[in-house]
């Protein structure tokens, strides 16, 4: 066995826990998970069947952790994993899985299939089988502070821009406030309107908040590439920043996997609970609305829909909040078929968008989203993930549907923020 195969096998042995063993033990090869996966439904290629992507790990489980498998191993009947296997499965595990988690909802025996893909990636990255795009993004994240190579300097420039636009202070490294806001690098680089938007919303709601120059990046390449070591390092930066600024809450940005990384994986990665709470920006906006602190005016009669980021719904549990918020203003809000829990992925989650090699496949499987959109005929898609937003824009362009506008929910909502007078009246009440 080569060293890299050894590392892969050891990582799998480390990763296989009771739930994983139960999932492999229960799989009957019914193939129903294929129908959940957009890579299968859009290509018809059986190799994209979700459980098949985990076949190497199944083999390790059988051989190392089952009675029958041990006997087979002892009799010399089990096949060793080879370098070739790892190379072949690399594309299955990275290029054709956005970790959207639909398969985990379909499986009749109840297997959480995507949780195993996350684990499988640990073995892939440990054995040097991670795609170049993700490796580079991870390197930039660790060394520069952001997968896109964005530095605090860029952020400061955007802050200045936002302060100019809003006439309000955009707090940076302000100690003792309630909330520390994180951003995704796509937001800083492309969708920077989010900064003035939240600045105005928080100002109106009277939320005390800050950005942090050492922990502004919410995205976590470690989670995407599947390395807990790297992911933990990135989480630690956020925890350090939050502790330094003594905040009570850290806001997860409009980014799917950032929420999963920060909200659900983070404490387990660093091995201790957080000294603060994590809240998704959309969750927070809905909380503010519920407390009467988010006041809007005007109506938007554009025919529009909401695209659920996978990590926010299936893997995150934020389902109703965006709809409540949209219905504050939108008069012609329509749902896509399979919306909410069963929503189809934009095609670029789970690090696929950062993996150049996967681009042709990713563009192909956008047809799943297109079919959903074709059935409702909207002028605008609102979403809550900058990666989804990028993927949607690109996919719409590919399909000559770019008359459909794509926007982030916070940014869209900020446009309907009540005027300062109403705001002031609100403050008094």
């Amino acid at each position, binding site marked *: 066995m080569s060293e*890299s195969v050894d*590392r892969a096998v*050891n*990582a799998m*042995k*480390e990763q*296989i*826990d009771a739930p994983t*063993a139960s999932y492999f033990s229960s799989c009957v090869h019914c193939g129903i998970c294929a129908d959940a996966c957009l890579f299968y439904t859009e290509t018809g290629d059986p190799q994209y069947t979700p459980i098949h992507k985990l076949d190497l790990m199944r083999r390790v489980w059988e051989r*190392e*952790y089952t*009675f029958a498998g041990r006997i087979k191993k002892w009799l010399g009947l089990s096949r060793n994993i080879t*370098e070739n296997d790892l*190379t072949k499965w*690399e594309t299955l595990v990275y290029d054709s899985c956005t970790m959207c988690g639909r398969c985990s909802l379909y499986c009749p025996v109840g297997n959480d299939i995507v949780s195993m893909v996350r684990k499988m990636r640990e073995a892939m*990255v*440990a*054995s*040097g*089988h*991670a*795609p*170049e795009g993700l*490796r*580079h993004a*991870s*390197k930039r994240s*660790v*060394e520069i502070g952001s997968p896109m190579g964005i530095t605090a300097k860029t952020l400061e420039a955007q802050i200045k821009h936002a302060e100019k636009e809003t006439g309000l202070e955009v707090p940076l490294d302000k100690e003792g406030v309630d909330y520390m806001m994180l951003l995704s690098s796509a937001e800083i680089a492309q969708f920077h309107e989010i900064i003035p938007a939240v600045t105005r919303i928080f100002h109106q709601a009277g939320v005390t908040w800050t950005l942090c120059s050492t922990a502004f990046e919410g995205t976590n390449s470690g989670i995407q590439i599947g*390395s807990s*070591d*790297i992911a933990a390092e990135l989480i630690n930066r956020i925890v350090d920043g939050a502790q330094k600024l003594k905040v009570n809450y850290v806001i997860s940005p409009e980014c799917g996997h950032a929420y999963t990384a920060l909200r659900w994986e983070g404490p387990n990665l660093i091995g201790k609970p957080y000294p603060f709470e994590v809240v998704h920006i959309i969750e927070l906006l809905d909380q503010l609305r519920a407390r009467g602190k988010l006041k809007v005016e005007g109506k938007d009669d554009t025919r529009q829909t909401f695209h659920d980021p996978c990590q926010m719904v299936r893997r995150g549990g934020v389902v109703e909040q965006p709809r409540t918020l949209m219905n504050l203003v939108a008069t012609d809000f329509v749902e896509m078929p399979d919306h909410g829990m069963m929503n189809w992925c934009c095609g670029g989650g789970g690090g696929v968008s950062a993996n150049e090699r996967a681009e042709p496949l990713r563009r192909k499987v956008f047809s799943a989203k297109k079919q959903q959109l074709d059935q409702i005929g909207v002028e605008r898609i609102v979403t809550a993930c900058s990666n989804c937003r990028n993927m949607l824009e690109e996919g719409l362009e590919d399909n000559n549907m770019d008359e459909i506008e794509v926007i982030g929910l916070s940014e869209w909502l900020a446009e309907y923020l009540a005027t300062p007078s109403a705001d002031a009246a609100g403050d008094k009440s």
Partner: protein
Amino acid sequence: MKPHDTLAEHLQSQGISRRGFLKFCAATASMLALSPNMAGAIADALGKARRPSVIWLSFQECTGCTESLTRSHNPSVESLILSAISLDYHHTLQAASGTAAEQAREQAMHDNQGEYLLVVDGSIPTGAAGGYSTIAGISNLQMLEETAKHAAAIISVGTCAAFGGIPYANPNPTGARSVMDLIHDKPIVNVPGCPPIPIVITGVISHYLTFGSLPELDSLKRPLSFFGDTIHDRCYRRPFYDQGKFAKTFDDEGARNGWCLYELGCKGPTTHNACATAKWNNGVSFPIESGHGCIGCSEPDFWDAGSFYQAISSSPADLSSAATGAVIAGAAGGAALGLYNKYKRSNAKDKHYTVTTDDMEEGSS
């Protein structure tokens, strides 16, 4: 007895009318599953048949088979046909004893060499060099081999002769064997049953006399016409089985209503015999009709096939104790293997390869 009388003459001399004889032939034809037209042929053949010499050997047995034939009911055609054959040797029935008896056997063997029928009841002990049972100083095994040598055919009457029966049952201390286990070069018909049904014995003899051959046999050398169906197939209570109506005890309403005795251990489904159609005691009834399940007495190994009162689908083994033991063993074994898995996993964690940015540089992909 004049050995060269024909059967018809002999029966007439015994006061059996032509009508009674034809009735017997018709019944025999029916039992042998022959066309009714064959009754005439049987009557003709039997009428003309010479009384064959029959040597009847009794080994490890209880005489129940002979009782079945001779005493089961009023003198009948079946019992008369027994006297219609030239029964030259039979321990129980012969008047002669000692040397005279053995001489009769040797004489019959000599006079009818290659033509006599050999009937055997009882199993043959082979243990202790055949010493468990001897007659006139000759072991059963030796006597069987000697007598079988020049026989035209052998009829093994009763389960003991046919399949070993009760002496053969576990642990078989005498090394009992069936006739067909020991004799391989003669035509053998098995007429099992404990005891066998009289008309089956006479039916086989009638067939031999009529056609000069043995009836069609199954793989266990039983006449198909009598043993082709199971008791269950022909049981008048069968409809209750199909409807799922079972007597649960011998005195419940189901039992009174004549429901199926399956759950009370009836072995009818696995027993091949003609009891349900030929019946016993002059056609009065058979065990199931009397309210008791079939015990499967005509099947090989019936004595070792579990309790007579346990349903055939249930297990004679003690399942619940075995299950209890298995739970304890499984829990212990599972815990050991499970903890070993846990240890293995923590071992893998100790060997964790820490991914750093250096790994982000190199790439084997």
